[in-house]
């Protein structure tokens, strides 16, 4: 069955507020319609459009052209109708979409998650486009010498279409200890835009899992070390996913229910993955809440990383 009605748009997706033109043509072979062909009336959603926006063609074909000076709807149905006994009969429709091209994404940052084994990047998308917009996380292997100016192999792209404004690249596709050139590109039917580039070693943006903090067991015997009065003895252990990372940790403590914490900058934990610590200078017979967090570090300070979250709280009470 050949189509009776042809509707064409000057563009299916336009800039919000821009003009748009359409044409509706009734095929002369289509007897069911040409027999009763009267006036063509246009509707935008449920509203009839002003007559002076359209003109019926005089060239022998049955049809009408219409121009909407400003399309202010982000989504609307444009209907081509034939008046029949006073009721507009819809004989064809076209879907109109309007919006904006994407702005450059901003606040672009990445975090390497060792537990999930993936590099997750986030960004702020800019003003709403009102159109389906894709965000593509693009990256390349690079060399460390020239700040990522020379690119080597491309890394598999990661696409975010669901409005989540983040995307993750699995570790298996990344070099952990070599520089990558990485950025996010936004694109839709009206245009595209890129965020600023980052030139990073994925391991330098690692965010460690928090350490595990526990009470140290009291050891009895000749070299027993009962906790001193005013001291608490704790036992810490690096998270399993980062046992191999040399870390620097810090401790914070407070009385339960207080607002402020006392910060204790800690030893460089070095390559050991567990140890004990004596926290002293505390009140006697008092309850304390303690937390610990760590960051990737090395003696020369060449290794980068983000502080882990604070560990789960440990509640301990000092001796009488």
């Amino acid at each position, binding site marked *: 069955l050949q189509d009776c009605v042809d509707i064409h748009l000057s563009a299916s997706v336009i800039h919000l507020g821009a003009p748009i033109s359409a044409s509706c043509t009734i095929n002369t072979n289509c007897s*069911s*319609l040409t027999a*009763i062909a009267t006036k063509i009336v246009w509707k935008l959603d449920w509203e009839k459009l002003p007559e002076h926006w359209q003109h019926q063609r005089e060239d022998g074909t049955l049809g009408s052209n219409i121009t909407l000076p400003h399309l202010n709807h982000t989504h609307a149905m444009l*209907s081509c109708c034939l008046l*029949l006994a006073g*009721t507009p009969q819809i004989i064809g*429709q076209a879907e109109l979409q309007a919006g904006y091209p994407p702005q450059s994404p901003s606040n672009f940052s990445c975090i390497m998650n060792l537990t999930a084994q993936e590099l997750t990047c986030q960004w702020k998308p800019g003003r709403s486009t009102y159109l389906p917009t894709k965000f593509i996380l693009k990256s390349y292997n690079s060399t460390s010498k020239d700040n990522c100016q020379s690119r080597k192999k491309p890394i598999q792209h990661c696409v975010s279409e669901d409005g989540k404004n983040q995307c993750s690249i699995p570790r298996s596709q990344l070099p952990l200890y070599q520089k990558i050139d990485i950025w996010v590109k936004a694109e839709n039917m009206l245009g595209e835009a890129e965020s600023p580039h980052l030139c990073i070693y994925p391991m330098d943006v690692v965010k460690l899992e928090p350490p595990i903090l526990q009470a140290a067991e009291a050891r009895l015997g000749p070299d027993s070390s009962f906790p001193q009065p005013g001291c608490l003895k704790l036992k810490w252990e690096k998270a399993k996913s980062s046992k191999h990372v040399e870390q620097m940790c810090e401790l914070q403590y407070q009385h339960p229910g207080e607002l402020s914490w006392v910060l204790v900058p800690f030893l460089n934990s070095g390559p050991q993955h567990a140890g004990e610590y004596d926290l002293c200078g505390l009140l006697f017979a008092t309850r304390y809440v303690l937390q610990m967090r760590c960051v990737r570090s090395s003696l020369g300070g060449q290794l980068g990383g983000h502080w882990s979250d604070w560990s789960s709280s440990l509640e301990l009470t000092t001796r009488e």
Partner: protein
Amino acid sequence: IPLSSSNYLPQSFLPQIQEQVRKIQNDIEELQQRLCADYSLCHPEELILVGQYLGIPKPLLKNCYSQDLSLVACLNQLHYGLQFYQGLVKALEGISPELAPTLNILQLDVGDFAANIWQQMEDLQVAPEIMPTQGTLPTFSSSFQRRAGAVLIFDYMQGFLDMAYRDLRHLSQS
């Protein structure tokens, strides 16, 4: 297969029927609301011309009892009508990603209803007549035609279901 001597459906059948018909009508109402809200296709009376050139047949809405049909003949007529609408609903597949889940549920609900009528005929030990499906189903060559066809088909189905329910209630009175 002997004809049952009863002229009425079991009392236990009607509550199930009511529930099934309400469900199908709720499904259709939801689809009708979406077609209006998302596509501005709200009034079947604006789609008469489209319906004519798509060849979507209007239903005959004459109750069984006004035609003075037997229980068996009435059930056969209802089952035939349901199968016809099942075919029309199937022709609407591909309507749009947003409407597809509800359309799928409507297909399952109509299928369940038709199967239930068939089972009832078997339980009454009457032979359901397998009638050839009527003519050809409409074909849609554009999204607009499919959506406009849907508005008309759903409008006709609501009328058919109202009539089917009145018939079945009439057949359940003892």
